């Protein structure tokens, strides 16, 4: 991987690794672990990681917790509104295998079938140390040019889309609340 990068890409990846703006999609309880991570105790900002308000500006989509079919639609929509290079961090065991509600009729079990996940943080919930550690790993991956989820998504778009349709029926929902 490393050898394929041009000099320009290496510089760009270096910059990207050191300035990560995240959009945290607070789908579940995991978001409660973020305030301590951002404030004085663990201070995420010293790595150049900061919160952003909109998907247009953000680099990381932080999926913090359970995803129901309803929220998965919104996650996909937000992800598609983000601009490449973009990374997804799956937060907690519920994004990995469905967590304790793995058998619910509305909870999806595996996030990386629908969107490309660059980093999973295991735990229920992961402690701030784990989050910081995970972000450090993600920064290394980006620096080495290995975090290529967004390229996978573009290359295998049909496959991802098929999984999405299988689970959700349709991604862009039309109903009485949206017309």
């Amino acid at each position: 991987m490393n050898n394929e990068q041009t000099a320009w890409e290496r510089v760009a990846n270096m910059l990207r690794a050191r300035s990560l703006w995240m959009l945290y999609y607070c789908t579940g309880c995991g978001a409660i672990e973020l305030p301590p991570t951002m404030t004085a105790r663990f201070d995420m900002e010293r790595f150049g990681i900061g919160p952003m308000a909109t998907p247009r500006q953000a680099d990381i989509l932080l999926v913090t917790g359970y995803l129901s079919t309803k929220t998965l639609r919104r996650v996909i929509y937000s992800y598609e509104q983000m601009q490449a290079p973009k990374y997804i961090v799956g937060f907690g065991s519920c994004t990995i295998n469905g967590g304790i509600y793995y058998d619910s009729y509305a909870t999806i079990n595996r996030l990386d079938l629908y969107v490309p996940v660059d980093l999973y943080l295991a735990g229920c919930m992961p402690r701030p140390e784990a989050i910081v550690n995970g972000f450090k790993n993600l920064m290394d991956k980006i620096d080495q040019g290995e975090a290529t989820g967004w390229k996978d998504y573009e290359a295998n778009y049909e496959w991802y889309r098929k999984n999405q349709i299988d689970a959700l029926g349709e991604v862009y929902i039309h109903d009485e609340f949206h017309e």
Partner: protein
Amino acid sequence: MIITILSAIALLILAFAYTVTLEGIARKIEARIHRRCGPPFWQNFIDIFKSLTKHSISHGFIFDFGVLMALGGTIATVLFIPAGNLVVFPGLDNVFVIIYLLAIGLLGMAMSAVGSGNPNASIGIGRALTQMLGYELPFMIVLLGVFFHFRTSSLSELAVLQNSGGTYNVLIMPIGAVVGFVSLMGMLGKKPFDTFIAPAEIASGPLVEYSGKYLGLLMTQHAFGTFIEIGLFVNLFLGGGKTIWEFLLKFFLVYFLAVIISSIMPRFRVEQAVKFYWKWPLILSFIQVVIVVFIMGRRV
């Protein structure tokens, strides 16, 4: 001619490098006040250049054009700010020209943001324009007193006159300087006057749809804008500087003060901000101008 071009390039590079560095330092200072460690001081350079490398979306012609107009107008304005002894257009740097040229940038940004079609952006622009009516009025009225006193509205001449007179305006017109500083906080969009970008409330307002290089350009524009606004204050009230270093030092002090004030403030609602500006700063500015016009008179 060649000297003008060279000094223009030097001023632009200086403005960019210095202000972006200071913005990084400001983040560090703010982190220290929060008892955090804070990012390295070059973090804002990384942010800007990273944004420029990213992909982006565009909402059509006016979305692009407005951003270019914003950055172009602001770059043009920077060239009229004297930085110590680095003056690009001596004598032609009229303050009214600077203030109205800065408005090109604002108008471009407003057009572009509203052109994105996002209501959050429109709300933010509405708030920004409302707040502008708040902070510009006291500032302009104080300026009237300054120009009346010194008989000139050229920024570099004002700086030279203060230096040759031996005292700075902040001592001659202390009330005006306070008003000017409060207005400066509004101009910079620092807390408590940052309703128009309120990230948690209207999703960073005008910036809501900007991605990649658009965001990078606007961050650059914001850096230049900061340079202009603080440069105006330093030249008007602190006598600019005999050398460029003196100017940069004063610049740092003013910015430092603004940052530490803003980092302990909550946010005003926009009508509260306007009401605030039209109460004390406006009254004080009138008092200052009346003192200047009717008691102090013109400078001999």
